[in-house]
C-alpha cells in the first residue's frame, strides 16, 4: 500500500502539469480572438479597421487624407470602382447604390449616392459597414464623407439618399484594376434582428418541406 501511495503522488504532479496545459490551451482559444484582430490590423487583412489604424476613419481625417491624395492625381491610369449593397439578415428594407459602377483616375475625388428606404412601420437606427474587395485595396480606398461614419436614424417609411465621397490612392498596386465597395446595412437593435432570423429559419424549413411535396 505504501508503494501505491507513492505512485499516486507522482501521477498527481504530472496530471497537475497536464491540467495546467489544458486550461492554458482553453485560454489560448480565446486569446486567438484578439490575436486575430491584431494580425488583421497589422497586415490590413479583411478590410478590418484599416482606416481606424491609419487614423483616416471619420469625416475630418478622411478629408485631410483625401485632399493630400488629390494633389497626386494620376490621369494616365484608369480603374473601375463597383458599388454593391447588402442588407443584413432579414431587414425589411430597400438599400441600393444609385451608381453601380464608374471609371476614374486614382487621386480623383468622386461622389456617389446610396438610397435607403425603411419599409417597416418602426423607427430604426442602422449602421452601414463598408468592405472593399480585393482586400489588398482596402488601405488605398479613402472615404472623405460617408454615411458609414455615423449611425443613421430612419423614421417609419422614411427614404434617404446618403452621400459618399471618396478618393483612390494613386499608390494602388498595379495589379488591381477593379475595386468593389460593398456596404452591409445592420439594424443596431440586435434582438429585433435575431427574432426575424428565427422566422426565416422556420420559413426555410417549411419551404424545404414544400419542395419535397
Amino acid at each position: 500500500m505504501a508503494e501505491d501511495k507513492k505512485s499516486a503522488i507522482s501521477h498527481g504532479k504530472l496530471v497537475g502539469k497536464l491540467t495546467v496545459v489544458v486550461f492554458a490551451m482553453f485560454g489560448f482559444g480565446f486569446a486567438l480572438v484578439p490575436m486575430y484582430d491584431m494580425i488583421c490590423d497589422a497586415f490590413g487583412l479583411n478590410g478590418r479597421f484599416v482606416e481606424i489604424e491609419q487614423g483616416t476613419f471619420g469625416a475630418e481625417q478622411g478629408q485631410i487624407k483625401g485632399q493630400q491624395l488629390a494633389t497626386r492625381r494620376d490621369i494616365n491610369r484608369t480603374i473601375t470602382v463597383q458599388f454593391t449593397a447588402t442588407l443584413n439578415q432579414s431587414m425589411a428594407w430597400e438599400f441600393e447604390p444609385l451608381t453601380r459602377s464608374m471609371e476614374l483616375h486614382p487621386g480623383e475625388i468622386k461622389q456617389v449616392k446610396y438610397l435607403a428606404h425603411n419599409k417597416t412601420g418602426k423607427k430604426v437606427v442602422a449602421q452601414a459597414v463598408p468592405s472593399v474587395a480585393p482586400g489588398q485595396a482596402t488601405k488605398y480606398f479613402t472615404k472623405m464623407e460617408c454615411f458609414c461614419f455615423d449611425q443613421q436614424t430612419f423614421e417609419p417609411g422614411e427614404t434617404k439618399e446618403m452621400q459618399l465621397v471618396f478618393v483612390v490612392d494613386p499608390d494602388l498596386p498595379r495589379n488591381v484594376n477593379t475595386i468593389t465597395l460593398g456596404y452591409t446595412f445592420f439594424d443596431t437593435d440586435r434582438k429585433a434582428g435575431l427574432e426575424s432570423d428565427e422566422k426565416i429559419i422556420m420559413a426555410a424549413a417549411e419551404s424545404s418541406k414544400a419542395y419535397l411535396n
Partner: protein
Amino acid sequence: MSTVAATHEHHHPTGITRWLFTTNHKDIGTLYLWFAFIMFLLGGAMAMVIRAELFQPGMQIVDPHFFNQMTTMHGLIMVFGAVMPAFVGLANWQIPLMIGAPDMALPRMNNWSFWILPFAGTMLVSTLFMEGGGPAFGWTFYAPLSTTFAPASTDFFIFAVHLLGFSSIMGAINIIATILNMRAPGMTLMKMPLFVWTWLITAFLLIAVMPVLAGAVTMMLTDRNFGTSFFDAAGGGDPVLFQHVFWFFGHPEVYIMILPAFGVVSQIIPTFARKPLFGYASMVYATAAIAFLSFIVWAHHMFTVGMPVAGELYFMYATVMIAVPTAVKVFNWTATMWKGSMTFEAPMLWAIAFVFLFTIGGFTGLMLGVAPADFQYHDTYFVVAHFHYVLVTGAVFAIIAGVYYWLPKWTGNMYHEGLAKWHFWLSAISVNVLFFPMHFVGLAGMPRRIPDYSPMFAEFNMMASLGGFVFGASQLLFLYIIIKTIRGGEKATDEVWEGAEGLEWTVASPAPYHTFETPPQVK
C-alpha cells in the same frame, strides 16, 4: 467478452455493475470498442441514407433539411463517436500490456472518461428528434450557419461536444501518465512499441487542441444565447475567425485520428513480415514531426476565404512539407516488408491495404494542399474522396486491422480466417467502388453537401452508392465475426502470431483480468 470474466474468479462485481463500476483497463477498453462499433454502425446507417438519396439525381427519399442533418451527424458521429473512441479503446487494452503496466495510471478517471461518452452520444443523437431538427450545418459547424441560422437543438450539440472533449482530455491525460510513469523496468522510451509512441504523441495533441475546440463551441454558445459577437459581424466579430479557431483544432484533430493508425500498422507489418520494423527511430521522429507540423498548417482548409498571397504561400509550403515525414513512414513500412517472409492473415491484409490506400489519400491531400489548385477542388466531392481515403481506408482500416490482430489475445479464440478474408476483400473492393469515383465527379465540379446534382454526375454517383451499400453490409459481417470469436473458436496460443514480438504476447490468451502485477524485466 464473458470469457474474460469467467477465467478469473476475482472479487469484482458481476452483471451490469461490473461494467458500470469497472476500473480495469481491459473492461474499459472493451467498453470503448463496443461503443465505437455501435456508433460506427449508426454513423454508417446515416451514410446509407446519404448514398441512397444520391443514388440518382433529383429528390428521392429525404427532404434537403434532413439530408443536411445526415451529412452533419454522419461526420460528427464517425469522428467523435467511432474513430476516436475506437483508438482510445485500443489504447486502453494494449498500452498497459505493451509497456508491462498492471493498469492505467488513473483507473477511476478512466471509468469516468468512458461513461461520459454514452451520455454525450445520446445527447448528440437526440437532437435529431427535437423541434427544428438536429445540426444541419456540416460537421465543421461554420458560423454563422451554426450560430445565427442554426436550429434550437444546437445548444444540445454544443454541450455534447463539451462532454466529448472532457472525455478525450481525461483519456489523454491518463494515457500520458500511464506511458510516462508506469513502464516496466528496462522499458526505455526508445524501446517502446510504436503503437505506444504514436499514442503518446496523439495524447499530447489531444490535450493541446480539445480545449481549443471547447473554447470555440463556448464562443458559439455565448454568441447564440448571451449577446456576445465573437463571430457576428453586426457586433464587431468575424465569421472567418470561427474558421481559424475551428481549424486550429481541426487540423491536429485529423492527425489525432491517423497517428494511432500509424502505430497499429507499425505493429502488424513487422509481425507478418517476420522482420523488425525498418527505421524505428525515424518512425518516432517522423511521428513527432507530423504532430508539430499539424499546428502550423490549419489555414489550408480555408484557402478560399480571401487570404493574402503571402499567407496562401506559407500555408501551402508548410502543408506540402508534411509529405516528407509521411513519406518516411510509408517508405519504412515498405522496407519492412522488403524481403520479409510474409504471410497474409487478415490483420496483414488490412495493414497492407492501409499503406496502399492511405497513400492515395495522401497524394490527393498534396493536390489539395496546392493553393491555386485548391480553388478548383474546394468544397467539391474531390475533398470528400480525399478525406474518406485517409479516414476510412486509413484510420478505420487500421482499427479493423488492430481488432483482428489483438482479438485472439482479448478473447482467447482465433477468429474465422475464411470469413475475415471475405470481410477484407468485400470491404477493400467496395470501398474503392464507393470513394474512387468521387475523385472524378469532384474534379468535374460536383459540390459536396448537396442532396441533388446535375445529371452529368449520375453514373459515377450510382456506382459510388452501390459500393457504399456493399461496404456498409460487409461491416455487419465484421460484427458477426467478432461475436462468433467471442463465443468460441479455435484456441489461440499465448504468442498468437508466429512472428509477434512484444510484452502483450507473453501473457496468456485470453489475457487474464489482471496482468503484470509484478512488472516484467525488459532487456
